[in-house]
């Protein structure tokens, strides 16, 4: 286990998540893609911490990433519920007018 290998795995997770976030039509599946991207970020941050500067304070960065993931998930579920309730939409293609 080296920094390079950890970063390679993190890059793979991030890229797979990016594919999902771009390609999926269902809102919940898009959220899963974003989660997978943040999964890669967590692994990369842990790798940087462990292999470059393993000072105890560095763990705080990981906590921030996990918090970001929590916020993304909660707001994503909130927006998905609102979309479903207001226009019976569960696919991104059914809400393209929101970008205008």
């Amino acid at each position, binding site marked *: 286990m080296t920094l390079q290998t950890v970063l390679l795995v993190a890059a*793979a997770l991030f890229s797979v998540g990016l594919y999902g976030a771009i390609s999926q039509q269902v809102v919940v599946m898009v959220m899963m893609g974003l989660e997978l991207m943040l999964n890669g970020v967590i692994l990369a941050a842990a790798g940087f911490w462990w292999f470059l500067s393993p000072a105890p304070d560095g763990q705080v960065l990981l906590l921030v990433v996990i918090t970001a993931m929590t916020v993304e998930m909660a707001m994503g579920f909130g927006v998905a519920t609102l979309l479903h309730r207001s226009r019976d939409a569960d696919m991104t293609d059914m809400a393209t007018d929101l970008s205008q």
Partner: protein
Amino acid sequence: MLTDIVFWVLAVIAVAAGVAVFVVDSMARATYALAASFVAVGLSLLLMNLEFIGVITVLMMVMEMAIMAIYMIMFMGMNPALMPMNMVHSAKGALSVAVGTFAVLATGALFIPWPSRRGVTGTDLTVALGEALMGPKMLVMITVSPVLFATIVAAIVLAAPSGRYDRLGDDLRRRSATARRPEGVQR
């Protein structure tokens, strides 16, 4: 050596489960695959002595995936969540972007001359994290706390079926709202 083997096993599981999220037939299976990917990453964190972060990652993501499964069944109906599905758009373009991103990130990871390791880990990293959050890194705690509180409020506002303006219209001083649906014994 053993750490290397465990890391590679977990890495393969994490990436394979991540790919499975977008390959498997049903959304319910996709949720389980994502949970497996998160558990593998959480266990990888334990290899780096990040016991607290690793354990909360595993616990949080398993619970989150359980909630996600409920959401999918709720929105999509029980059958679509368990039946084969393929709902993608511009898959080739997305694949190209993903492969390009991986190539750039992998190139950086392999060819950047990373500095050597500096500093040492403390004896009890969980205690150290708590002390950092309550001491020199208090700004993070001060920022994260209101953000999480705002998230709770915003999520409830978004998900609530109606606000008081929906119920009462412009006359907010009315004591009771008009029923959204007929109520009572004579409805």
